[in-house]
């Protein structure tokens, strides 16, 4: 009986189900395919991010260590001030032959025959030439040190530093490498005596430009970047927010404002090097501002950041629900009161996020700075934004062009410092967003 009944049921339902078959399987397959595309796109992105970070960090982490040599330096009066004129002539202490003190200390430490000049030369080459200024600063700061023996930590020369970090292949014949066998022997001797060792490299944060890798740092560049960021913040934020409020809330909607809007959107897409040319023509050639100055850099970056801030601010203002505006206007608040008491505080998270993204963009910008002369060899800290300085990304660009082995790790080290700056700024954006965010 059931054998007969069931085909009858099947026949009656089949046409309906056949009609409804509109490709469920195909639809699910399409969905799965799309999901796979998405996942592979994200994985590809993550892979390249990981590759980038791995390259930078594996090359750069050694830059945060520096080989130092701690020697007992005898501040002999005979060398520093042979004629005893230091009380009357201030120049004596500045121009004294300080490397001689290092040489004497090395001769004593390594037990070299002082008459064998090539050997002595090899020994003194192991210590950075920056020792001169280091010792001079000690003596100038405290002249009473003359005549005493003080233990001083000196920077090792860059090649010794590289060799000690294992970055130089010692199997190569010594004529083809910068560190000679004798130096390697001394290096190992001093290392086992605890005189030569690796320590945290504070210099990379504080030093200015130098052609000697061990004495080069991003200090001046970081200060230059900081000056520029302050200028951008102080100029671009108020100008950008004021422009957006006017365009969004006050300006009549007509051809002119449409034109302005299109232009702002286009300006956001203008290549940054064009802003550099603009800065060169207007700020340096026309207004006569100093070259290489953070002031000019800041102004150029302000112009570059303005469209970003204006677009973000306008979007944030647009996103404030109109009911809040009606509520304030309905209570008899003026337009200004409505905007400044209600709309702006609600738009604040969006404005801040846009501003910080704009700032982060400006922080990493190199091209326009090349044109206004911020690619410069600046040793001394700028005292004001009017004085010459460089910027972090420019410093990276310059180090990447250097030939020495030790600059490779320093380039990556500087990139790490720049990335940390960016991460801190973005974290700041997130925190500010959380703080100002309100529900409505």
């Amino acid at each position, binding site marked *: 009986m059931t054998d007969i009944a069931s085909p009858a049921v099947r026949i009656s339902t089949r046409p309906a189900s056949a009609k409804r078959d509109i490709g469920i399987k195909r639809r699910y397959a399409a969905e799965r395919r799309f999901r796979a595309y998405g996942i592979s796109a994200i994985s590809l992105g993550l892979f390249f991010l990981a590759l980038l970070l791995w390259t930078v960090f594996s090359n750069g982490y050694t830059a945060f260590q520096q080989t130092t040599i701690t020697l007992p330096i005898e501040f002999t009066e005979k060398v520093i001030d042979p004629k005893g004129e230091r009380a009357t002539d201030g120049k004596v202490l500045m121009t004294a032959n300080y490397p001689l003190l290092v040489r004497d200390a090395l001769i004593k430490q390594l037990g070299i025959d002082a008459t064998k000049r090539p050997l002595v030369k090899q020994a003194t080459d192991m210590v950075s030439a920056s020792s001169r200024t280091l010792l001079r600063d000690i003596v100038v700061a405290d002249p009473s040190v003359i005549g005493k023996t003080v233990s001083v930590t000196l920077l090792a020369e860059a090649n010794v530093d590289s060799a000690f970090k294992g970055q130089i292949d010692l199997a190569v014949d010594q004529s083809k490498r910068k560190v000679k066998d004798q130096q390697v022997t001394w290096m190992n001797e001093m290392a086992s005596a605890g005189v030569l060792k690796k320590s945290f490299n504070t210099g990379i944060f504080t030093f200015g430009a130098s052609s000697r890798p061990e004495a080069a740092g991003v200090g001046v560049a970081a200060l230059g970047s900081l000056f520029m960021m302050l200028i951008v913040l102080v100029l671009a934020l108020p100008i950008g927010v004021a422009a957006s409020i006017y365009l969004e809330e006050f300006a009549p909607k007509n051809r002119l404002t449409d034109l302005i809007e299109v232009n702002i959107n286009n300006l956001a897409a203008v290549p940054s090097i064009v802003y550099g040319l603009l800065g060169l023509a207007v700020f340096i050639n026309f207004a006569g501002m100093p070259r290489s100055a953070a002031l000019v850099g800041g102004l150029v970056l302000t112009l570059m950041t303005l469209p970003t801030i204006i677009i973000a601010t306008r979007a944030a203002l647009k996103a404030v629900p109109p009911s*809040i505006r*009606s509520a304030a206007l*309905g*209570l*008899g608040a003026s337009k200004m009161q409505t905007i400044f008491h209600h709309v702006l505080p609600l738009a604040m998270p969006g404005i801040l996020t846009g501003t910080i993204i704009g700032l982060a963009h400006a922080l990493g910008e190199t091209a326009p700075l090349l044109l206004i002369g911020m690619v410069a060899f600046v040793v001394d800290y700028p005292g004001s934004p009017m004085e010459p300085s460089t910027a972090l990304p420019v410093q990276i660009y310059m180090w990447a062009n250097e030939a020495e082995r030790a600059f490779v790790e320093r380039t990556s080290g500087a990139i790490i410092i720049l990335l940390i700056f960016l991460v801190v700024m973005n974290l700041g954006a997130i925190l500010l967003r959380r703080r100002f965010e309100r529900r*409505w």
Partner: protein
Amino acid sequence: MNIMSEAAVEKALDQKMNTVPYKMIGKDVSVYYGEKRALFDVNLNIRENTVTALIGPSGCGKSTFLRTLNRMNDTIENCRVTGKITLDEDDIYDPTIDVVELRARVGMVFQKPNPFPKSIYDNVAYGPRIHGLARTKSEFDDVVETSLQKAGLWNEVKDRLQEPGTGLSGGQQQRLCIARAVAVSPEVILMDEPCSALDPIATAKVEELIHELRSNFTIVIVTHSMQQAARVSQRTAMFHLGNLVEENDTDKMFTNPDDQRTQDYIMGRFG
């Protein structure tokens, strides 16, 4: 609140509405949105201490008319108003009239509760603050308390005045908005479908509140609910396609309207 005046108001309300003086007079009011005309020469007067309900199908112009009464239409681009509207003899579209001052005299409650994302206290104190109605902390405390009491919200929120107004329930939020409007001591309160986003219980509370507010304020309410118009108002105006069809005592309107269209709309034949 003084018992004598309340009694007098009740007496006035019990009399024929025609004896109550006009608070606002609208003469030949037309509104254009760009090329489109939304209101056609509306002549509608609002009586003092009365609840006037504006009814009619969607898009008939009742909200547009309401918004001309405190010039909220000014905020809409391309909106143009012709005709004359007076508030106690003052032409509110006169160039010398300050719209900020007008809106302090004619308050508004919106369709969707829209408290500011601030504390309950700050929501109510905002109006008095910008209009300089209170100066000291105790003056603010007073105005916040009385306004919340008038809006029947005081007992529910007195222990949490510093909590955000957006954390209240929908009905409480709407009463907070009414308290906020009441705090600037307006003469007229406009309500644009104040209960359309509320549940029946919250609606009942707001309607009760409207009934109480009538003794101190002139109220104009736009509503889609015929029952609500019948419950809360003394005068009703019926709009259709931008025209004022009929304006009458609410009792008469719902029992024996003069116009056939009103009859049809109330009976549910269109709308």
